[in-house]
């Protein structure tokens, strides 16, 4: 579902709730989930998915977890907290914060994560956890660095 985590700035979607967050980087055309799931029977059994969502490789405490621990079985357009509350995809920080409490605390004050735009006199947008971390495989992936500066002796002195 969160197949591709894009680093470019996705469309600003500011319908907000508690924090002015970006839209989660949902794969194109996949939302609302109820388009497909509304007519499907809920199968809570842990299994290898063969027909849909085959691109998702769960690598996030996968031995103890399955789709429906976070995705709400009754209404697939929502996420589910451990206490049974359902939340929107744009509030997914609540879900992540259940386990990663200290990171969530830092995120709320702007120390973990990223904010862009205007801190004064304009729109400020917070990146959601999932804008940088793929929730199914959250470890931050290595990047190719930009080129190093040119060594001076190569440029000067002809």
């Amino acid at each position, binding site marked *: 579902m969160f197949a591709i985590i894009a*680093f470019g700035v996705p469309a600003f979607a500011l319908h907000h709730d508690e924090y002015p967050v970006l839209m989660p980087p949902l794969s194109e055309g996949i939302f609302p989930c109820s388009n497909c799931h509304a007519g499907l029977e809920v199968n809570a059994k842990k299994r290898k998915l063969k027909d849909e969502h085959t691109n998702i490789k769960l690598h996030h405490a996968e031995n103890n977890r399955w789709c429906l621990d976070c995705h709400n079985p009754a209404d697939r357009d929502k996420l589910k907290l451990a206490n049974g509350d359902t939340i929107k995809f744009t509030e997914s920080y609540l879900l992540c914060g259940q386990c990663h409490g200290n990171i969530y605390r*830092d995120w709320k*004050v*702007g*120390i*973990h*994560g*990223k*904010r*862009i*735009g*205007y*801190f*004064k*006199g*304009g729109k400020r947008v917070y*990146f959601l956890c999932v804008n*940088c971390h793929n929730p199914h495989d959250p470890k*931050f992936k*290595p*990047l*190719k*660095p*930009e*080129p*190093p*500066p*040119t*060594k001076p002796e190569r*440029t*000067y002195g002809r």
Partner: protein
Amino acid sequence: MEDRSHTRREFIKMMSMGTVAALYLGSSACTKDKAEEFLQKNFREMSETEKKQVIRRLEETYLRKYGKKFRISTRPTESGVLWGYGLDLSRCIGCRRCVYACVKENNQSRVNPQLQWIRVVRLKNGSLINLENAEHYYNPETVPEPGFMYMPVQCQHCENPPCVRVCPVKATWKEPDGIVVVDYNWCIGCRYCIAACPYKGRVFNWGEPNIPLEELNTDVHYLGNRPRMKNVVEKCTFCVQRVRNGRYPACVEACPTGTRKFGNLLDPNSEIRYLIENKRVFRLKEDLNAEPKFYYFFSA
């Protein structure tokens, strides 16, 4: 005494006539713009009307030179603001996205000379302060590399800036909001400030700057990212053109790991105050007593 061919009076007379003649010839030989530029005052001594004239002249010059309409701001400091910067060393992966975002935002020369205001330094784990072993030409396939950490260094906007003290013509100074700026038109290119800076935060235009026309940023500040000329010093300005309009600096927005934090040190609710009060913080070369406003911290 009587047989001296020139008296003092005659000497002075000749000298003054000579000066007048030289000025006349000089001004007729160069354009009005050049003469105005030559007579331009230090930015801090300009009146509001003089600033407007200078801005108009510069905008015309840039239009002629680059074929683009520039908007040059002279927006001053707001009261109750002292900018501070935070950099999370436990998050930086050394990808240099900040370096290139800065180059683009601030119209730095791309090649010959290649000028960059941010230098990302690679250090071995466990030898953080040992800058003698720092490497900034690292170029692996991917970052972060195991066993290393990365520390971007740029102008630290010292409260007690050594670069400002050594400038013989007062072409560089600290603004009331704490940003250390350069009046490029006043700079004589002596580079004393480069020698004085303990952070290598300043760079010099050894040649005429080279900027691809299509990449020019035309939204500029007089004391910030307006195009520079040969023989002047330049440096990070915390993106003065952005932050005085309430916008995050370009490096903060470019960082893919959220390493960079920016805010008002005088605002108790700002991100920067939170991290200073709650995280492990240090300032680079604190012992030099330059009082930098650039706080390195560890969030994890």
